[in-house]
């Protein structure tokens, strides 16, 4: 799980252009939206694309993301259970 969490942090930094950040700056349990990383609605869409492109997970609707994108750890757990690639 730890390696997937690290991989996910690196992907998030790359996909969301968080150039000033390193994986160490992202708390695995901190909220991704709001007070945590402070991501916005476009970032949420980009995360949905990331899930499909990298792990073959297709979210039926954007509202599903609300529970899945709670934190990097929650995301990693969902990916490890549902990935097809």
């Amino acid at each position, binding site marked *: 799980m730890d390696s997937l969490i690290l991989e996910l942090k690196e992907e998030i930094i790359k*996909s*969301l*252009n*968080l*150039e*000033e950040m390193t994986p160490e700056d992202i708390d695995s349990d901190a909220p991704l939206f709001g007070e945590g990383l402070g991501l916005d609605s*476009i*970032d949420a*869409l*980009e995360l949905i*694309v990331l899930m*499909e*492109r990298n792990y073959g997970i297709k979210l039926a609707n954007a509202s599903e993301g609300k529970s899945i994108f709670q934190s990097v750890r929650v995301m990693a757990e969902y990916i490890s259970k549902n990935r097809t690639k």
Partner: protein
Amino acid sequence: MEKKYIHSVVRITNNQLMHNGELLLTRSAEDSSWPVEMYRGLHLQYPKFFKMDNLCKVGFLAAELAMKDVGVSPETEKPDFSVLLLNSTSSLDNDISYQQTIADETNYFPSPAVFVYTLANIVTGEIAIRHKIKGETSFYIQEKFSPATLSDVAELGFMPHKGIREMLIGWVDFLEDKCDVLLFRISVNPENSISEWTDEEVSRWYEAGVQKK
């Protein structure tokens, strides 16, 4: 026609950044990202910068310098201020990037983050958000840089009935690593200005950044 006065001028070319005629930065290497190099060279702190496309990045950088000595912070609302920009390539630089995310049918992942910048006028919005500018924002596509057209747009932009007294106006163009920016902060107030706004002055500032062959 009310007289207008230039208070700040920013010129960005492929390899130089100038503010009020002073050379601030020179590009260090052709293979570097020039907008990112300028951002770091100016020691700015605005994480959203990295999410912007190149057109927004260079417009944002020019506005940071042009607004530097405006006398109030970016956090202060500016109801009497406008942002009016022009260029010739619209958002084509970013449109190409977006097209690349949908070019391969077997690897078809349209990027929402790239898509949101496929409009030239996003740069006026980014600048207005950053500096809390509440007046008019417009972006015009023209065949080529023309001081006379810039003057026409400036004339339209000062709207006494809406109380518009100041504006950022200029040419902000970026395509495939070619950067051509000339941004003015102008006002109807002559106090502390650099010069009166005339077509000749606009032309002179533009030519100041043209690379001699």
